[in-house]
């Protein structure tokens, strides 16, 4: 059973250019799929469309988002929000802006459980303590009483991970969750997400621009250019031999410290021209391959 199936999802700027071009995507239950591409490729946009948090300047012009078989786009808004709230969660990029600076950590984890999912306060509190222990926070009671500014960046990201897993979601959108962290903390956080994901069997859409990260935490990946999926592969196949010239060029641009001659090669202009032509052809209704 797929946790999420997206068919022909098209999103555009209101009265403006397309941002997602008939995107297809399949996410099996318990699978981690990387969404990669350069800034503006639309990778975050897919996650936002699924979670119903697209900015007001943007509209969905077509397609289906099937969450466990139900098309979210055909549900009345209230029912859609309820369903997304009950089955999905987000791990955002910047832990400092995602946490309210004037509230203690505890209620920021538990309020959603109590107000939206109808848990009792003691049950939610117990769950919060249990989750903080699971994300390896040594002193959960103190941390639950802390304010965000009293905690380090890595600690705050742990809290957001705990909070995302709180209601046992089927699907988590992780939107560049480690981009703001330095490499050693990033490694801890990625291992933590991978461990939580495996234990809870959660499907994750993992938005990132870092192919190194994809190779560590994902089973499949979609490569986007200008809102179009140019490649959909398993991680093993992709890193052995990327099929699309653009995704191959992206891989060649990724730094590789073990081989100073490889990596850090800009995507060649010829590759950009070719993929742009492909996008234009796709828009005219004549998709290649």
């Amino acid at each position, binding site marked *: 059973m797929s946790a999420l199936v997206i068919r022909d999802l098209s999103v555009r700027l209101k009265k403006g250019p397309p941002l997602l071009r008939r995107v297809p995507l399949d996410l099996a239950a318990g699978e981690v799929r990387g969404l990669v591409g*350069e*800034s503006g490729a639309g990778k975050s946009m897919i996650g936002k469309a699924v979670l119903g948090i697209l900015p007001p300047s943007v509209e969905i012009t077509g397609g289906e988002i099937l969450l466990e078989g139900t098309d979210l786009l055909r549900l009345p808004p209230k029912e859609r929000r309820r369903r997304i709230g009950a089955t999905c969660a987000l791990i955002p990029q910047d832990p400092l802006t995602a946490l309210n600076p004037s509230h203690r950590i505890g209620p920021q984890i538990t309020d959603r459980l109590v107000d939206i999912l109808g848990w009792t306060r003691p049950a939610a509190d117990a769950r919060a303590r249990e989750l903080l222990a699971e994300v390896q926070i040594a002193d959960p009671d103190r941390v639950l009483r802390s304010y965000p500014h009293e905690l380090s*960046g890595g600690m705050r990201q742990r809290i957001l991970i705990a909070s995302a897993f709180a209601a046992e979601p089927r699907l988590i959108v992780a939107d560049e969750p480690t981009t703001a962290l*330095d*490499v*050693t*903390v*990033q*490694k801890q956080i*990625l*291992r933590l997400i991978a461990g939580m994901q495996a234990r809870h069997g959660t499907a994750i859409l993992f938005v990132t*621009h*870092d*192919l*190194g*990260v*994809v*190779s*560590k935490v994902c089973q499949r990946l979609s490569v986007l250019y200008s809102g179009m999926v140019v490649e959909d592969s398993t*991680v*093993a196949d992709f*890193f052995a031999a990327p099929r699309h010239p653009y995704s191959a*060029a*992206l*891989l060649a*641009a*990724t*730094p*590789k*410290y*073990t081989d*100073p001659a490889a*990596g*850090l*090669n*800009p*995507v060649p202009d010829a590759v950009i021209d070719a993929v742009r032509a492909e996008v234009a052809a796709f828009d005219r209704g004549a998709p290649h391959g």
Partner: protein
Amino acid sequence: MADLYQIQDLRLSLADMTAKPLLGAAPKIEILKGLSFTIPKGSAVGIVGGSGSGKSTLGRALVRLLEPSGGTIRFDGADITHLSDAALRPLRRRFQMIFQDPMSSLNPRHRVGTIIAEPLRLHGFTDIPTRVTRALDQVGLPQAFAMRFPHELSGGQRQRVGIARAIALEPDFILADEIVSGLDVSSQAQVLNLLERLVRDLGLTLAFISHDLSVIRRLCQQTIVLHQGRIVENRPTPDLFADPLADYTQELLSAIPLPDPAQPWG
């Protein structure tokens, strides 16, 4: 090769505002705890470390945006450790800085041409239009970009403007503080290649601050690893990568996720 910078037992303390009492002065914490190293003329030195290791503070001390609390900084033979702002002013043209976030380091109300011309004017250059034209050329931006505003440019183009502004002054030394960490891999590669070429062609000396060892590998001949305000390793880059000596360097290296599913990363 002569040294452009000679750093001896550099110490720097800053006020710890998180521990400041309501009334009275904030306690000082020592960020840099006695660093000694040299930067040879014409070389590119990488400065790496995790957040809070002191790498940006060190950079700011090198270009004297911060005043050290101990030790000495010699620039081209002259002691600049405690020079006053006025005494530093003529030197400022010679050490330039490129910043991490071009959106906050380029004035959003000025056109690119004005942004590059402003420091030239302050330093009393007379052939400003020629220099602006040449700087845009050197960083590979079309001349028409002089009329654009920063928000009309991509992240990589903005960083090129930052580089153009710095090299227009014909400095001896450039400090680049995490200048590619906000960029996509392709723009990152372009900016690094550009910097590599400029350092070579213009005979610049470069200090390149980054938390990512993999971008330093290509660009820098020498790498300084900082951890908690101390140098834990300072060696030629190829040696450091081949055989990292300090535990912290090994930790930094092994934490980098290589784009390779076969890499052991447990």
